[in-house]
């Protein structure tokens, strides 16, 4: 039975009204359709390309235009974006706010990216702060304030990742520097971000932002501990990782946040396996370990998923 036939049956049996039937039928037949995702994707690509193009142009023509002209252009773009946002956006509220127009979020995002460009320009061309730390911290503060003022999770993610950059927590550093100190920073970052998110949630300030904090905080902490399992203090990291992974799985199931169940399972298994595979040594036993324990994890997940299976 096709979707249209099913809709006809539901109308005949009184499940939906004639008006609903006509509306849903038009949606199914694509007489009306949404291009929200497509337009949003194009706007996002456009904003990133425009901001990148601006920086590229300024870098190449700096000798011709001079600093004053370029800084004036930065001021116009940033000022224009913020003027638009402050004049079109509603008053601040602690609750979730829908953007006043489709392009609103992207204008804000463009302003943030251009602000980043301005800071980069100031540092590269003039060496204002003699180092990137101050830039990253000020950018994180500005992005965070704008994210709360205009209720934008995208800009909040930008703020938190910039803060991570300030703490020396970029993934590139993770790959190349293998020190306990970096891991402690990452774990501290994860805890602080989670605590801030939870604290603001408890205060009733933009409660819907909590997921952003939790995702970033959990991943930073788990990644740091997993990367440390193979180090000299491996057992210490493992003793932190396993209870946290178990807690994430428990809380994820309890609050229907299954991404955290996945984090707890994957990071927990990875950390434990790194330690045990190092101890096992033999390739044959290691492969047997992966088959047996992997099967046990799958069985455990299947049993767990029975509680909230989407049957039907």
């Amino acid at each position: 039975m096709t979707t249209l036939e099913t809709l006809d049956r539901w109308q005949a049996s009184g499940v939906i009204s004639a008006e609903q039937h006509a509306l849903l039928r038009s949606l199914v037949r694509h007489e009306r359709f949404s291009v929200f995702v497509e337009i949003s994707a194009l706007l996002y690509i456009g904003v990133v390309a425009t901001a990148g193009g601006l920086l590229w142009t300024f870098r190449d023509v700096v000798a011709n235009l001079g600093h004053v002209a370029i800084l004036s252009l930065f001021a116009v773009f940033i000022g224009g974006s913020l003027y638009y946002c402050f004049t079109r956006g509603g008053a601040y509220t602690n609750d979730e706010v829908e953007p006043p127009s489709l392009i609103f979020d992207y204008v804000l995002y463009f302003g943030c990216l251009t602000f980043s460009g301005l800071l980069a320009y100031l540092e590269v061309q003039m060496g204002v702060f003699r180092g990137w730390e101050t830039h990253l911290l000020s950018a994180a503060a500005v992005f965070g304030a704008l994210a709360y003022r205009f209720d934008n999770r995208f800009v909040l993610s930008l703020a938190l990742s910039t803060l991570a950059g300030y703490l020396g927590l970029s993934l590139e550093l993770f790959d190349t520097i293998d020190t306990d100190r970096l891991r402690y920073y990452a774990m501290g970052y994860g805890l602080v971000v989670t605590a801030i998110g939870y604290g603001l949630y408890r205060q009733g300030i933009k409660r819907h932002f909590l997921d952003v904090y939790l995702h970033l905080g959990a991943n930073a902490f788990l990644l740091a501990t997993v990367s440390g399992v193979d180090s000299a203090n491996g057992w210490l990291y493992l003793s932190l990782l396993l209870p946290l992974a178990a807690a994430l799985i428990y809380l994820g199931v309890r609050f229907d946040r299954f991404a955290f169940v996945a984090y707890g399972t994957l990071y927990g298994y990875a950390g434990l396996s790194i330690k045990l595979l190092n101890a096992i040594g033999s390739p044959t036993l290691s492969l047997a370990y992966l088959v047996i324990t992997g099967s046990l994890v799958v069985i455990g997940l299947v049993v767990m998923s029975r509680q909230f299976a989407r049957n039907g």
Partner: protein
Amino acid sequence: MSAYHPDQERAVRLLHRIRDWHKSALISEAQRDRMAADLETGLRRTNMFLRATMFVFGLMIALAAAGLMGALLEPGNSTVWMLAAVAAAASLAASAFLVNTYHLYRFGIEEAFAVAGIFFVAATIGFAFEPLRDVSGDTAIGFAFAGAAVAAFIVFFHFGFVYAAVIAMACAAVAPFEFVDDDVPRRLIAAAILAALFFAARLQRGDLGDEFPGDNYAVIETAAWGGIYFI
């Protein structure tokens, strides 16, 4: 040939639409529940995070099990293809068993075994044609890609995993690059293969629009068109 009845596939898609309609306030919660109850499929599904986790573990189990068989049996160069063939058969059989017995639908684990099966088919053919390396350098790899394409299409038609069809097209398009040395002819052959798949999908889609299986064929059309640009 398909593991799922078309009515089940349509019902699953309609359940997604019903959720969207409810989120958009086009239908009430009571209506949503009544409509969903009317679409009982008998399939066992899970959410996308557990699906992804089970996919990762399923793939790891299949690859580790094949590696374990290899470590225990220690096949020689001339018999390693048999080991890969057994692994392919076992993976695809495990996938079919999980679907037929437990009625899993996009559960992750059965998808992992099916994808592993495609990989092992490619390995089987690659190892089996290994002696041809002396004749032509990359012929064995070309046959491996061609075999993977056939296996992936079978997986798509049987289980309905649309990404298997995309894998199949990618393998089919890459295979000529291993058989033909000149750049222009091999690009033309690859583009011709993708164009043929595009038109085949277009014909199959017909007037179905987004109605199953039209939605799957639409993805195949798009991927084939994108592949032609890429090549």
